[in-house]
């Protein structure tokens, strides 16, 4: 397993970071954390470093979502456009492993982005907002960050699937934006019906499961199913696995002309 996936993952990471866009994005995120800190310092008196980290994530998660979704579709579209897809496919590697390594590379960047966002906003918060009284703790912050993961992981997987089906970046991003927007509206409408708990959209924001109001924030009960956290997370995992499996299957059947 490690012998197979590790070299492939290293290849994907090399390609991801060989071009300036990934690094530029990380720089942009750090700058965004600094600007959020400066604005908070000017406008509020209660917010502390932890509160800033959560506030930064509220908007920052959409930056991360958009960037990683585009990147996922792009890693596939680029290989087809440049013809390098042939290089990947005429080597004795399974196409499933190639897909998994692409997903893994984008997820690595995703985690780096969240970590950077967290550390940068904490650092800025400690410097600029040393006397916050908002009641957040580090453990609350960590939970909030972790709860955003299923959403991001799922959409990156979905974007890979659309990328393989269409080799089109615009289509991927459009679909993800529409689903992200329509999905929550739709689940709210369907939330009265028992079958709606099987929809992945109900489980993409796990914050609603947390007992602490500080974590839940504005997430209302309607979007949260009545399944416990672990089962909610399991549903997301199942959807993600199906998504990656379909991607690997379609990719495996594809004729490259």
């Amino acid at each position, binding site marked *: 397993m490690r012998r197979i996936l590790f070299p492939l993952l290293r290849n994907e990471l090399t*390609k991801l970071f060989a071009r300036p866009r990934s690094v530029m994005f990380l720089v942009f995120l750090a700058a965004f954390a600094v600007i959020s800190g400066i604005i908070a310092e000017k406008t509020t008196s209660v917010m502390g470093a932890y509160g800033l980290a959560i506030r930064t994530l509220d908007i920052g998660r959409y930056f991360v979502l958009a960037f990683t979704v585009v990147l996922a579709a792009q890693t596939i579209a680029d290989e087809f456009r440049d013809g*390098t897809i042939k*290089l990947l*496919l*005429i080597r004795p590697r399974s196409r499933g492993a190639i897909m998994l390594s692409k997903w893994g590379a984008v997820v690595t960047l995703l985690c780096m982005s969240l970590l950077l966002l967290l550390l940068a906003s904490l650092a800025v918060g400690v410097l600029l907002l040393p006397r916050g009284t908002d009641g957040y703790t580090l453990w609350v912050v960590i939970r909030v960050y972790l709860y955003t993961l299923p959403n991001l992981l799922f959409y990156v997987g979905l974007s890979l699937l659309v990328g393989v089906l269409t080799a089109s970046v615009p289509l991927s991003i459009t679909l993800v934006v529409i689903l992200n927007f329509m999905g929550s509206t739709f689940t709210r409408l369907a939330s009265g019906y028992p079958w709606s708990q099987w929809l992945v959209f109900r489980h993409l924001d796990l914050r609603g499961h947390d007992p602490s109001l500080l974590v839940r924030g504005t997430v209302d009960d309607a979007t949260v199913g009545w399944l416990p956290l672990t089962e909610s997370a399991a549903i997301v995992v199942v959807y993600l696995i199906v998504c990656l499996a379909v991607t690997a299957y379609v990719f495996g059947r594809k004729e*490259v*002309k």
Partner: protein
Amino acid sequence: MANRETAVRADKPAIEVIGATKVLNGRKIIDRLSFSVERGEIYGFLGPNGAGKTTTIRMMVGLIRMNEGDIRIQGHSIRTDRKRALAEVGAIVENPELYRYLTGRQNLQQYANLCERPIDRQRIDEVIRLVRLEDAIDRKVRTYSLGMRQRLGIAQAILHRPSLLLLDEPTNGLDPAGIRELRDYLRQLAREENMAIVVSSHLLSEIELLCDRVIIIQKGRFVAERTLKEEATTDVLSFEIELAESDENKDRMAQHLESRGFEKVDDSGRWTIPIRKEHVPALIESLVQDRVPLMQARIRTTALEDLFLRLTEEGIR
């Protein structure tokens, strides 16, 4: 156990194409094509544009599926034993596929990571020297010339010491010096690494000095296969003479030449005859003795070249 299975089967041809057929949009692009190539051999895969060379190579490396038939590499079927078959192949399909934003060395490392068996630094340095890219290897591929990309592509394709090297029109975009250089190190590879090398081309002249054997295909079908080794002097040549014709000798000469098996090319006094190479001196001697007014005499083409030119012209039409 695993060792024996993955070992190269020495008794098998490097590649066997067995009745491969590809149908696209209801049209047979490749029609029951069969041939095989041994290790150490350089095999020319000839055909006019659109004959189906690239399609065949794509089937060989599993980029597209075939509708009928099979392709076996060192005895491993590309249909049922893809991984083991591909472990034995290095290929350039149409263009060398390189990441332009990576350096030459990074590209080789990418390829190395895609291989089953680990490839060490020494091997990477060795192939860099072999294709003479030492000076440019740490530059981005974006800055490479076409010839350098071609060479880096070959370096990639031989990195894992395959028993079969497939090159699709490698002479495209190379100047005569580049073609000569390519010829030199392909010969070296066939000899030193005991590789089977399949080189496709739509121009016989560009690969005839390179290949031990050639196959000609047209519209996806087998046309001919020939051995090109020097010792194959039994091949029939086309021998051409041009006469200093005048009105009074014209008819007499025509009669005389026709009786000897010559054929008229056109009305400019040129005649050809199919003949074996070793019979050429005797023929010239007898023509001189018969006082045939020769302007010039030359070996025009080999029979293979004749066949190929005819095919190619048909292909263009």
